[in-house]
């Protein structure tokens, strides 16, 4: 039987007066990999920030394992957040710490484990993301893709119940990107990890998604398996799956006016 790990109810949020999320309803089951797709600026990363409690919604509720995090203060959220891993788009490594210290940080902050155990765990996580031997490097000595993988190692350091990834494959070469996809599949199998990923990489979608939520203008336009979405007639959905560009419709007067600054 599926148990619900994340439940989002009627989520609405604004940046200033601009509505970014407009009535999102979504559930994610234990062990499920949900991919959030959508064009730039459609609210994907904002949705992610709300689910992990970094932003408060204007309206609605977000329940993590049954606990409404929108109604909690930081102290109340801490035990829930400890079991959540987050891979930020930028990686967000601490530049003053070595790669190993970055990965070990959550274990040092939140557990009573011995340093020897933490050291082995850190090296195991780095090995899993293909960075064995880079423990003593500084983030500045790594390429963009390696930083992203180091950040992923940190995100999974505590073996989280739920892992959120904001564009994990962006900036990675295709071989490394597919390696990350394989790792995500292994984490799901080994730890029954619930995984929510924001991505534009359609190859990843086909490989790892159990379900896909397609976001458009702050709303969920479609939700289902890849096959279900591919079978839908909606042109916006088809445009995504067929990787079609926007039609080049130009209003001559409007275009001329924009060029001459009139």
């Amino acid at each position, binding site marked *: 039987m599926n148990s619900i790990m994340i439940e989002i109810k009627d989520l609405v949020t604004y940046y200033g007066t601009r509505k970014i999320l407009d009535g999102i309803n979504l559930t994610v089951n234990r062990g499920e990999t949900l991919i959030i797709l959508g064009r730039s600026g459609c609210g994907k990363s904002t949705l992610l920030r709300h689910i992990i409690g970094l932003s408060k919604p204007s309206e609605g509720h977000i329940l993590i394992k049954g606990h409404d995090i929108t109604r909690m203060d930081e102290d109340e959220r801490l035990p829930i957040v400890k079991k959540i891993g987050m891979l930020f788009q930028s990686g967000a490594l601490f530049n003053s710490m070595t790669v190993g210290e970055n990965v070990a940080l959550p274990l040092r902050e939140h557990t009573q484990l011995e340093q020897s155990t933490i050291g082995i765990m850190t090296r*195991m996580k780095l090995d899993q993301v293909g960075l064995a031997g880079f423990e003593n490097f500084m983030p500045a000595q790594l390429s963009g893709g390696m930083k992203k993988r180091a950040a992923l190692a940190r995100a999974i350091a505590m073996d989280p119940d739920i892992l959120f990834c904001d564009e994990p494959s962006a900036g990675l070469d295709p071989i490394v990107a597919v390696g990350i996809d394989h790792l995500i599949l292994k984490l799901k199998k080994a730890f029954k990890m619930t995984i929510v990923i924001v991505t534009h990489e359609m190859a990843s979608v086909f490989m790892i998604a159990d379900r896909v939520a397609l976001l458009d203008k702050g709303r969920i336009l479609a939700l289902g398996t890849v096959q279900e979405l591919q079978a839908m007639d909606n042109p916006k959905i088809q445009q995504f799956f067929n990787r079609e560009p926007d039609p080049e419709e130009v209003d001559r007067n409007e275009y001329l006016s924009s060029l001459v600054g009139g």
Partner: protein
Amino acid sequence: MLKVDVNKQDDIAIITVEGDIDLYSSPQVRKEIIKLTNDETKGIIVNLAGVTYMDSSGVATLVEGLQLVNDYKGKLFMCHVQGVVHDVFELSRLDKVFSIFPKEADAVKAYHEAN
């Protein structure tokens, strides 16, 4: 709730673990392994039949145990590595590092054959 039993007979100790081995309970397993390695117990067999979940801290604890046992040329064997525990071992590629046996009797026999 984690239960760790140690049964020592001659130069072999069987550690029987039941329950979830996670960030908060793995130190309990480590404590027993460290006690045995401090005594330089020649054969340590970890029976994981009753383990319902194991995270990376559990695996790291066993790796540390293996390293300590190797230092005094003892043996650390695993048995009943199955289901989710096997998946975690495989993820960490430790199915290639540990000597793993299907049953406790197999591990005991292997120890005696090696000594």
